[in-house]
């Protein structure tokens, strides 16, 4: 066995083992550097894994050489690879771009602990993506959640504390519901391994515990994924977290919960439970639709830029949930694509917010008047990413919206109303984005100050790399598309 065979395990072990070493480093700079390096190496590992998945299909790994179902299995398929790329990419982007901002938010003395928690959060999220059994998903979910609570509460804004307390309560309820569901399934099937579960569920489909399990798991994960109206923890947590942390968690943490939600509802329940797809659709599509419409509407009235983007995230999660609820091949491809594309757009937007707050010390829209003329480079990148959020042709957002509309049109009878809802929400996205763009370019700067105040070149360059990747994946969507299609076929065909 050479090192390449251990990639799935390394993906989790590397950040997890680097975390204690980072804590031992004395200064914030060294800790940041070590965390960034670990994050970049993880990104490299994720790319290698993606290449392996695209070349030879699903990667299996038995921890310690114990074959499943007795040992712990790690499984990486197209879907996991997509999520891994998101996690490690978002973490690298946020760490690389967030150095200055984090230095202001975190005490130098406590910075090593902070970066340690960051790596543990990343390790947990990666663990969810590679885990092949339901209980390890729970453990990794809690590892990443606990570390994420620390990251959000680490800043100087005291409102983050009450926000994170709420997140902790709701997050733990969600995880405990998930655990109850897993318990019921274990009771009936005697296995925790996803692949085994899908096989053995056939014998016990008609029993009530399995139906209860499906309910507990779906609701628990919907809480974690912030599907409307279970999103109440999200806006405040995103708004008051340190800016660089928001880049990281907004891009990937809810997506990972959606990933596991899809894995359970499709790879395990779909095709085993009679009428499950209909039930799932009836449950999730109304929630998704109200999220798409109401959260977009609420976003229009926000006075804080971060809160506006946070409500926009709730609406975008609605798109993903809607596409997933259609239970069709096209719908799932659209959901997975939108996971990727929304993470790209939101990551870029929040990275621009990092830059805005660095120069003007505030994320309130009223204090950002005229920022477009003072920071032309950053603002142009913001506009580019916002176009992708709206779904303008030529950007990544357009590709997933296109797939979403195509998938929705296949729904008999409901196609047109659903398309109308999607278009209405996209128009609302234009409104809230324009509200900020207008004051940024045409508003009068506070104190009539028009002096340029761009951020340092490395951060500006990084923002532009992120913004251009929105265009790149809009013109050449082959990579996410291939992963989404391979992920969809494993979801619909069971794990094999």
């Amino acid at each position, binding site marked *: 066995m050479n090192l390449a065979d251990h990639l799935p395990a390394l993906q989790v072990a590397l950040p997890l083992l680097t975390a204690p070493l980072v804590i031992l480093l004395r200064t914030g700079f060294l800790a940041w550097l070590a965390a960034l390096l670990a994050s970049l190496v993880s990104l490299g590992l994720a790319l290698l894994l993606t290449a392996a998945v695209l070349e030879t299909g699903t990667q299996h790994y038995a921890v310690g050489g114990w074959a499943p179902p007795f040992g712990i299995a790690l499984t990486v398929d197209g879907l996991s690879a997509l999520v891994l790329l998101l996690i490690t990419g978002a973490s690298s982007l946020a760490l690389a771009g967030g150095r200055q901002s984090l230095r202001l938010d975190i005490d130098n003395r406590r910075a090593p602990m902070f970066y340690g928690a960051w790596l543990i959060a990343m390790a947990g999220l990666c663990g969810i993506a590679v885990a092949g059994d339901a*209980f390890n998903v*729970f*453990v990794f979910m*809690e590892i990443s959640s*606990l570390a994420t*609570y*620390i990251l959000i*509460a680490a800043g100087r804004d*005291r*409102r983050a*504390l*009450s926000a*994170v*307390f709420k997140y*902790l*309560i709701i997050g*733990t*309820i969600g995880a*405990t519901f998930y*655990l*109850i569901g897993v*318990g019921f399934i*274990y*009771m009936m099937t005697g296995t925790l391994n996803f692949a085994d579960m899908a096989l053995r569920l056939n014998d016990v489909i008609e029993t009530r515990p399995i139906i209860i399990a499906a309910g507990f798991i779906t609701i628990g994960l919907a809480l974690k994924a912030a599907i409307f109206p279970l999103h109440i923890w999200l806006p405040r947590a995103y708004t008051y977290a340190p800016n660089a942390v928001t880049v990281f968690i907004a891009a990937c943490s809810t997506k990972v919960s959606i990933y596991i939600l899809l894995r359970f509802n499709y790879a395990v329940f779909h095709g085993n439970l009679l009428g499950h797809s209909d039930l799932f659709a009836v449950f999730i599509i109304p929630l998704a639709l109200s999220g798409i419409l109401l959260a977009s509407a609420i976003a229009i009235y926000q006075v804080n830029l971060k809160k506006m983007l946070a409500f926009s995230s709730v609406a975008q999660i609605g798109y993903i949930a809607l596409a997933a609820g259609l239970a069709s091949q096209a719908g799932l491809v659209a959901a997975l694509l939108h996971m990727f594309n929304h993470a790209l757009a939101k990551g870029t937007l929040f990275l621009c917010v990092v830059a805005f707050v660095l120069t003007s010390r505030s994320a309130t829209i009223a204090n950002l008047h005229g920022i477009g003329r003072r920071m032309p480079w950053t603002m142009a990148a913001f506009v580019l990413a916002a176009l992708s959020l709206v779904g303008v042709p030529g950007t990544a957002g357009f590709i997933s919206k296109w797939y979403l509309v195509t998938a929705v049109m296949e729904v008999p009878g409901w196609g047109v109303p659903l398309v109308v809802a999607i278009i209405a929400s996209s128009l609302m996205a234009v409104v809230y984005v324009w509200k900020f763009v207008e004051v940024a370019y045409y508003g009068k700067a506070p104190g009539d100050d028009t002096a340029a105040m761009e951020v340092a070149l490395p951060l500006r360059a990084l923002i532009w790399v992120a913004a251009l990747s929105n265009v790149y994946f809009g013109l050449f969507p082959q990579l996410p598309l291939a992963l989404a299609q391979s992920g969809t076929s494993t979801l619909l065909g069971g794990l094999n």
Partner: protein
Amino acid sequence: MKLLGLFNYWVFAVLLMIGLAALISRQNLVKKIMALAIFQSAVFLFFITMSKIENGTAPIIQAGVDNQVFSNPLPQVLILTAIVVGISTTALGLAIAVRLYEEYGTIEDNEILAMDRKP
């Protein structure tokens, strides 16, 4: 008999609901943490009950003893992990409550929210 046979499951459901109700209705953050602990303990009870069978022993093969009945050790191991997770959550929740008390001088959720609203 059937009702009594399911005694543990009833306790599980009741504890779960007590925890959830207290989580929703209490404003005091420490009481919320206590409710969360009750909520999680209910699930521990559920898993342990699931693995228990009559006359079941620890899964150790003994020389010269036939017809041994073992309790399934796996749910117990799972719950060992879940207990650790639960303790970490409680510890972190209490730590945040302490920080909130330092910043706001109160641990009542509604008072903290009211202070957040007036800038």
